[in-house]
């Protein structure tokens, strides 16, 4: 909201002695941070941030009220001469509870005189252009100065009674901005006997607006239910100064006052003559008192506060306060809709004292802390291990395009994962896999000249179910480009699928998902975190005895077909070795693959390393030779032969 420095000072004269920097700091300490200060001509305009709960502060008077309370100073008196209210000149009917009171007045316009210069300048500092129609400009000025929206109708365009009612479906209204609005039963309107003439609290109608030719005006200064106004403004996409203020809660008690001030301006500026003023409905009853217990106040404040001081602070804010034993009975002022619980009043006490005075202490540790969850620790450890293995952790958006998602979403309907209101098609589907996102990142890195791309991301993958989208935490890995070649010992070579599998195995994946080649040379693997081991409950596992006798290793060089299944070969040799050597057999694994034109066509050489170790003795060469023969025979059964 914009605040003009001098206009604020008019409401609170003590501010004349305060610099703009100090004023900004004071406002911030009250909860109204100043986003910008702009000086133009002889005006200084502050852009103040007002939180959504403080509809009462959306005016110079409202802001001055809080400052006056903080500075313990008096607001300037309001130049308000209450109009003598009389009988209604014609019926004003309130047919909805959303409008409990409607103050109005009928005036003959003088037609001579215009909006004063200083008001034109004030409106301009508020970013608003004067229309040089006193009824319109005065209403606008009052809104910025005092916060209560008012409206003036050209009385001669009205037909019969004025009614505040819910619109009927099918009714339309052309609002002041020239837009034809279709109305629904949820729109509160001001209507005459022909139909709607204004959207209540939002905007007046075009057909009944005041023009230079208007002879008589009917003033409106009412109170509308904030929720109704908010919904209407939202539905019509019409966020006016009026709807902003009514939507955040106007002061019902200001309804007759604003009407009086508006009428007084018309009388003063253009010699308008009052024909009558009256109030339809009734001002809402005074709010119920709330008990603010001293104990609650002290708990929130973190120290014992004097109830007398608290009473004085709340009184300065316009509350009516009485001290009852160890509590305050507080009645909020009519403009503070945000105050309803004792906590709200406690906050006001602290706010006016200044949050800086709140003491600082660590809370006592009441119960035992809970352990860090296994899933959190697992994700954190996986991330650290992968980073140390040379992978870079990425953070990518959870939504992607349906085209990018589809290849990774077999049996996982995209519809159930699709947003109804995405930023665009390329951000519309919650991804079934992190791989398309990693691929895009990898390709960008390659374009940037990276020789080797090593990426991982941990995040949820989405699956459609009848209950809605389900998330499963996964880890995705991508590796592309050249490995090695960066030092004198490591030769450069292209990344292979086996490299990625090794990483997955190192993380503890028993049966990692197959490696996918997303694009030539772009290898990737994704697996659920659930497929990886979690942190063990036991800090150190149960002791398992180990052999102190030497292990014996034997290498077996085998010629096998190029399409020989390694799994089958290992399975066969393991089976034979378990049968022959029992627990002495430790492991078998391929430690080298040799492919060369010197080998028989269609064959390759695998170097298998067999490992034996007994718990109770040193193995003899003869027994090991026997087992190796058994392994060889098993391999030969699959067509392998010993390489000479």
């Amino acid at each position, binding site marked *: 909201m914009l605040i003009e420095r001098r206009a604020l000072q008019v409401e609170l004269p003590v501010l004349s002695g305060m610099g703009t920097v100090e004023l900004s700091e004071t406002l911030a300490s009250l909860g109204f941070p100043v986003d910008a200060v702009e000086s133009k001509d002889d005006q200084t305009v502050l852009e103040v941030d007002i939180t959504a709960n403080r509809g009462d502060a959306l005016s110079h008077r409202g802001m001055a009220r809080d400052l006056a309370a903080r500075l313990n100073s008096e607001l300037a008196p309001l130049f308000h001469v209450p109009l003598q209210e009389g009988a209604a000149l014609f019926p004003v009917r309130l047919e909805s509870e959303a409008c409990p009171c409607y103050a109005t007045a009928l005036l003959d316009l003088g037609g001579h005189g215009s909006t004063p210069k200083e008001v034109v300048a004030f409106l301009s500092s508020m970013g608003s252009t004067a229309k040089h129609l006193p009824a319109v400009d005065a209403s606008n000025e009052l809104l910025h100065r005092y916060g209560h929206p008012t409206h003036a109708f050209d009385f001669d365009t009205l037909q019969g009674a004025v009614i505040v009612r819910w619109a009927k479906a099918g009714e339309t209204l052309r609002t002041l901005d020239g837009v034809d609005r279709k109305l629904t039963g949820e729109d509160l309107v001001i209507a005459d006997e022909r139909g709607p003439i204004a959207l209540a609290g939002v905007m007046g109608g075009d057909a009944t607006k005041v023009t230079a030719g208007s002879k008589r005006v009917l003033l409106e200064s009412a109170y509308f239910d904030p929720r109704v106004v908010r919904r209407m403004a939202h539905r019509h996409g019409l966020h006016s100064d009026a709807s902003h203020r009514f939507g955040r809660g106007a002061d019902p008690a200001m309804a007759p006052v604003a009407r009086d001030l508006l009428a007084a301006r018309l009388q003063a500026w253009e010699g308008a003559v009052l024909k009558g003023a009256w109030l339809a409905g009734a001002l809402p009853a005074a709010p119920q008192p709330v008990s603010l217990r001293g104990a609650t106040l002290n708990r929130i404040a973190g120290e014992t506060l004097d109830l007398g001081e608290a009473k004085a602070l709340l009184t300065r804010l316009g509350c009516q306060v009485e001290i009852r034993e160890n509590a305050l009975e507080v009645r909020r002022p009519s403009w503070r809709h945000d105050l309803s619980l004792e906590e709200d009043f406690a906050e006001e006490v602290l706010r006016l004292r200044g949050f*800086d005075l709140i003491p600082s202490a*660590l809370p006592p540790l009441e119960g035992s802390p809970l352990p860090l969850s296994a899933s959190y620790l697992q994700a954190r450890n996986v991330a650290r291990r992968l980073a140390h293995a040379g992978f870079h952790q990425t953070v990518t958006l959870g939504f992607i395009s349906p085209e990018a998602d589809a290849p990774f979403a077999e049996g996982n309907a995209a519809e159930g994962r*699709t947003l109804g209101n995405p930023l665009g098609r390329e951000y519309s589907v919650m991804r079934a896999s992190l791989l398309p996102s990693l691929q895009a990142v990898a390709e960008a890195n390659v374009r940037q000249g990276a020789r080797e791309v090593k990426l991982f991301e941990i995040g949820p993958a989405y699956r459609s179910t009848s209950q809605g989208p389900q998330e499963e935490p996964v880890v995705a890995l991508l590796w592309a480009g050249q490995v090695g070649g960066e030092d004198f010992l490591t030769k450069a070579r292209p990344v292979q699928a086996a490299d990625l599998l090794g990483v997955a195995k190192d993380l503890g994946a028993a049966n990692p998902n197959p490696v996918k080649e997303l694009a030539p040379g772009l290898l990737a693997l994704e697996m659920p975190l659930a497929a990886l081991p979690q942190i063990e409950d036991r800090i150190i596992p149960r002791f398992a005895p180990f052999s102190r006798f030497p292990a014996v290793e034997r290498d077996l060089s085998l010629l096998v077909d190029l399409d020989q299944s390694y799994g089958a070969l290992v399975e066969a040799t393991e089976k034979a070795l378990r049968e022959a050597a029992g627990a002495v057999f430790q492991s078998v694994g391929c430690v080298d693959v040799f492919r060369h034109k010197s080998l028989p066509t269609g064959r390759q050489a695998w170097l298998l390393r067999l490992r034996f170790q007994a718990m109770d003795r040193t193995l003899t060469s003869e027994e090991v030779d026997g087992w190796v023969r058994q392994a060889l025979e098993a391999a030969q059964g699959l067509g392998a032969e010993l390489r000479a």
Partner: protein
Amino acid sequence: MDLTLIPADVAKAHQAFASALAAAADLDALMRLKGEYVGREGSHAAGLMDLLKTAPKEQKRELGAAINGLKNAWEEGLKARQVELEAAKKRAASLASQWDPDLPPPLPARGAQHPLNRLMDRLVDVFRPLGYHVEEGPETETEAHNFDGLNIPEDHPARGSADTFYFQEHSGQLLRTHTSPVQVRVLKRLAPRIQELGGIRFLAPGRVYRKDEIDPTHSPMFHQVEGMLVGHGIGMHHLKGTLSYAMKALFGPGAEVRFRPSYFPFVEPGAEVDVRCPLCGGAGCRVCKGSGWVEILGAGLVHPNVLSYAGIDPTEWSGFAFGMGVERTAMMVSQTPDLRLFFENDQRFLKAMGGLD
């Protein structure tokens, strides 16, 4: 040496011997040279011996002496050169197995954690000594958890489809707009055990979504860290003490905090929390726009409605909650000029900004 009786070609070869010897760069070349001069057959020496056999008797003595002189000179020369070359070979062999220690060594692979994850992990570490554990919640949430349970009014603009992403087929489900729904989930889950637990305290780091277009300061997906504590007699001083500790742990002992009144529907009182600018120490700089303070958190005492909604008696229990924008803090601390860099994931950026623990 008298070479008058030596044939001219051999004399010439003798003159060339010294330079031929020097030119023999390895033992193979030396052996070839040896064969050429003193080999059993076809060498200069063998030729001279043949000459000696057929020489007239009166010349034999003199010729023999000259031949011996030549042979000795050659053999000595060859032997000396052989020693030299063998020594050189040995030295080369020994050098070949040594590396200059200044050669760049092979480095273990170095990746990086993402800077945003690092910052979140760091916050967990900071709060762990205060007894906070980590809670996680789903990104897909219900209106009940994301709004209702947090005292956010039914017609609050944040609920609108202009601010919040909703699922097409499951209109009641949305992408959480903050980590605060984790408050609702945890409070509801732990409410039955709260007496036994003696309160609740946790941190909830995570990803959240809001319908913002991507630009240098906005992203439709970003991260928050939510913190919450519920206990007996919890007040604003406890919030201040806790955040004061945390900011010092995060930014160093000079990190003062300042509270300003603010408003969030799920807390009362509510505050914006500023920290003394960690970059200029409060003197005023570009990051704090000269004010000496940077806004870093939203916080407050848990609204009684939030406790009641979860089934916790607000007349007995009270608490505080706070929420930090991870990107905003990361950008502030690192002076990263553009939020999009965090989502671009250039490996050079990740290495420099995230790195390894």
